């Protein structure tokens, strides 16, 4: 039985790998060169210069564990082609060797995702397990971001899922340890740190004075040990200031170049709308000189009417948004709800954070996949949110050659979700008297509002891809992106509110 299950998971992974291999020649973003440069930095320079090197504009800005990971990969890179790890000669290197090498490292590192899913679904019944596997390993967003655009999200999310799986098993110390490891790989995961902190404190350390204190010390020392392993060498060299400044470059604007579909989109539009109306009404409203996306000397962004937003503001807002979840976690820490809380935390971080990339939507879509199979409402919610978040990733691969691929990935994912959820929630009666030609009625039905919203996505795509270039050409080039961001932001706000309600009830 167990071997059967492992075979099936491996099968899913192998099928996904086949698709990933075929995606090797696809469009690569600058992230490809970023990671190649990090291979070069970690290989050619001593540790003390990793966070100082500026040979290329793509400086190291992830925590040290990721740098160690790149160092490990660079050992193989040098065997494949020494030019990859050359600091100067390898700049913008795009020969077949480096493309194949880097793409294949991403494919291999996805094994951590597979392991995370394996561990998470050990005690789940077969149909649900397969569904979770399909939703995570075949996630279209992950395929598009990791294997087209180029990143290592699968690898990192695998560690996160592993940590969640240990928490669900009740083994909190290891769960906390793994989360600390994830933090040292990519600090963006820290958004869920409050949830971990509260949960672990309440669930693990709240067990009587002696045991509690012992456990607290154990947890604390584990976390400190992980951070020491990561940052230790840099603290020793006195470089910690530089490392932190690289990791948190707040000189960037509130929004990324392609607006992530989060709350700030509405804020910006409201501000622009108000400024426009007030100007029309005769008030003297200053036109802001800088843009929302570009970096400035200061940390604030130019809003004409509404109050300025600073990184501190966003930090406070994210914390405020997570608070209901923290209260729930404190009152009643249940292992089964951890995935839900973590997904909620990442949703809040996505919606209210500073300089959020739309790629960050993966951080909550993947954990939500675990939750999606738990009930019918969860399934319906996941159906909507995963399609919206995948669609919001479309502008990332904007070349026409990848267009059929991303559209087909999304359509395929929607169809597989629909079939999978329908199968899971199919009528019990239909299941018993299953005949050859019979089709079973399913309880999985999408509501009218959701259906029309999803149809609206098609409309948005038609307008932004076909109607806008045909009628307006190159003018108002920001409009399609704004349209996509705003429309998707509506969906993600809905998801946030839904998740909040689900957590509170």
């Amino acid at each position: 039985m167990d071997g059967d299950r492992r075979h099936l998971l491996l099968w899913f992974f192998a099928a996904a790998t086949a698709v990933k291999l075929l995606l090797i020649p696809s469009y690569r973003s600058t992230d490809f060169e970023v990671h190649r440069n990090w291979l070069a930095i970690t290989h050619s320079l001593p540790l003390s210069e990793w966070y100082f090197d500026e040979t290329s504009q793509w400086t190291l800005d992830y925590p040290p564990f990721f740098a160690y990971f790149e160092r490990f990969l660079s050992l193989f890179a040098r065997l494949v082609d020494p030019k990859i790890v050359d600091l100067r000669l390898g700049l913008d290197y795009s020969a077949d060797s480096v493309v194949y090498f880097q793409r294949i490292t991403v494919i291999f590192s996805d094994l951590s995702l597979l392991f995370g899913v394996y561990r998470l679904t050990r005690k789940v019944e077969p149909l649900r397990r397969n569904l979770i596997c399909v939703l995570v390993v075949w996630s279209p967003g992950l395929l598009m971001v990791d294997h087209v655009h180029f990143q290592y999200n699968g690898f990192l999310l695998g560690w996160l899922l592993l940590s969640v799986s240990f928490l669900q098993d009740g083994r909190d110390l290891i769960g906390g340890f793994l989360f600390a490891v994830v933090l040292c790989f990519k600090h963006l995961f820290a958004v869920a740190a409050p949830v971990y902190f509260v949960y672990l404190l309440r669930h693990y350390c709240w067990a009587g004075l002696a045991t509690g204190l012992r456990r607290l010390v154990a947890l604390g020392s584990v976390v400190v040990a992980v951070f020491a392993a990561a940052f230790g060498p840099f603290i020793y060299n006195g470089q910690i200031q530089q490392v932190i400044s690289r990791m948190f470059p707040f000189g960037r604007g509130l929004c990324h170049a392609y607006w992530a579909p989060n709350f700030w989109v509405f804020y910006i539009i409201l501000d622009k709308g108000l400024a426009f109306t007030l100007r029309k009404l005769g008030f003297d409203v200053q036109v802001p000189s800088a843009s929302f996306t570009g970096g400035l000397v200061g940390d604030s962004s130019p809003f004409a009417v509404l109050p300025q937003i600073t990184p501190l503001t966003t930090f406070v807002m994210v914390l405020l948004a997570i608070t209901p979840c923290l209260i729930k976690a404190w009152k009643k820490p249940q292992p089964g709800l951890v995935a839900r809380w973590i997904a909620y935390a990442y949703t809040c971080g996505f919606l209210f954070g500073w300089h959020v990339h739309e790629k960050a939507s993966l951080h909550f879509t993947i954990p939500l996949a675990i939750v999606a199979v738990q009930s019918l409402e969860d399934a319906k919610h996941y159906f909507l949110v995963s399609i919206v978040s995948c669609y919001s990733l479309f502008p990332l691969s904007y070349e026409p050659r990848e267009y059929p691929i991303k559209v087909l990935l999304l359509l395929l994912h929607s169809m597989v979700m629909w079939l999978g959820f329908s199968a899971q929630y199919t009528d019990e009666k239909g299941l018993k008297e299953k005949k050859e030609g019979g089709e079973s009625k399913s309880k999985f039905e999408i509501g009218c509002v959701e259906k029309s919203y999803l149809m609206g996505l098609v409309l948005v795509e038609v307008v932004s891809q076909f109607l806008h270039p045909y009628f307006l050409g190159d003018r108002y080039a920001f409009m399609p992106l704004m349209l996509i961001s705003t429309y998707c932001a509506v969906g993600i706000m809905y998801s946030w509110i839904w998740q909040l309600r689900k957590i509170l009830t």
Partner: protein
Amino acid sequence: MPKKNLSGDGTAAPIDAWWWLSHKGTTTSFLCISLFALLIRSAVSMFPYSGAGTPPKFGDFEAQRHWMEITTNLPATDWYRNGTQNDLTYWGLDYPPLTAYQSYIHGILLRFFNPESVSLFSSRGHESYIGKLLMRWTVLSSDALIFFPSALFFVLVYHRNRAKSQVAWHIAMILLNPCLILIDHGHFQYNCISLGLTVGAIAAVLCGSEVLTCVLFTLALSHKQMSAYFAPAFFSHLLGKCLRRKNPILSLLKLGIAVIVTFVIVWWPYLHSVDDFLMVLSRLAPFERGIYEDYVANFWCTTSILIKWKKLFTTPSLKSISLAATVLASLPSMVHQIFSPSNEGFLYGLLNSSMAFYLFSFQVHEKSILMPFLAATLLALKIPDHFNHLTYYALFSMFPLLCRDNLLLPYLTLHLLFTLIYHSQLPKTKASSFSFTSFPGYVFLLRTHFFISLVLHVVYLTIQPPQKYPFLFEALIMILCFSFFVMFAFYINYTQWNFSSRFRSADKEKKQI
């Protein structure tokens, strides 16, 4: 894992991990699998095409582009005529008119978005991002519009009473045909159109609408003359069926009229004079190119290592010899179908006649393995093991061609994908009265073949052939594949004859399989 018994025939139930895919009906699972198939095709399209970046001649991609150039710029009567504007030595049209019409339509599309890719003369050797993209999309759209619906038609007709999970497997086998994907979306060709029309014709036979069969098959023949590989099977089956009717002459007449009318409609521009017609025909059958070219795993090319056919005989006599050999090879299957036509026998007949043509015909290319392979795909549920081996050797016979096109990664990946999907659900075969596996040494023979082929894969990629025999490895690959194809052809012929002996006493008019 609880197993649900979905098949009604009492055999052990296949793994039902795929129940979720097929529980909403055949058409829905077809749609889902076709989305995946289109995704794979789009991904393979990103890889190089034949003749990429190799002036002055380039390859099939340039040929197709050139045909779009010719058909959009010249009147129809001049398409096959050598002239100042149409130099037939530079990739002259050598497929029948339907290909020309299809090139015309695609050429109009290209001209709308990227005129410099089809402008007369100046677009020779045109290679650009948008040009390649548009060409790839024409193949993708042809596939989606012609091959996929025909496949759906076939699946719906063939699987009227079968376990749904097996239907999904079969759909995946048909749509994820690795050879077709690699040739059409990698190397670059439009086989999907003629094969799609052929599949439509086959489905029409299975549901009994013979006029539709004739129309579709004539269209397929008018798209690529290689569809004639299936002609004996169609002819013998329809003849056999007509002979069983109350009024055979009338039935034959009906079918004949359908063929002639379709033919006249398609070939209309070239039927105004005998000269025009012969001009087209001479382009379709380039006998001056010799009985074989390159290294294809058929009889003439393989035996030419020992018997130098080209030196012993002249081309006209070789023409007659190959014709005779082909007819002889397809004769058993034809005779069988004329005397006892049946739907299943027809499918075997398709496989037999296409194998016979592949092995013995004149001027066969490696890509022609697509024809027998398609017939085998349609029969995949009946001969799963042999189908598995055939896929492997069909792909292997095209391996040198694909390597020349830099399609090694798609080759390996599609192989992997095929293996994964094949093993996701092994259909149970009804035990046949005679199986080659009981033949002493057969399994050993297969295993040695496989081992040698693995070695040849590595050798071809890593070692340089000796100066004296620069095509040594291609020849070895050809010999290996040929020996498998011969064994396969024997087995299929035997199965078809065996089939009839089992049902000789039963009713000949089989309505369903």
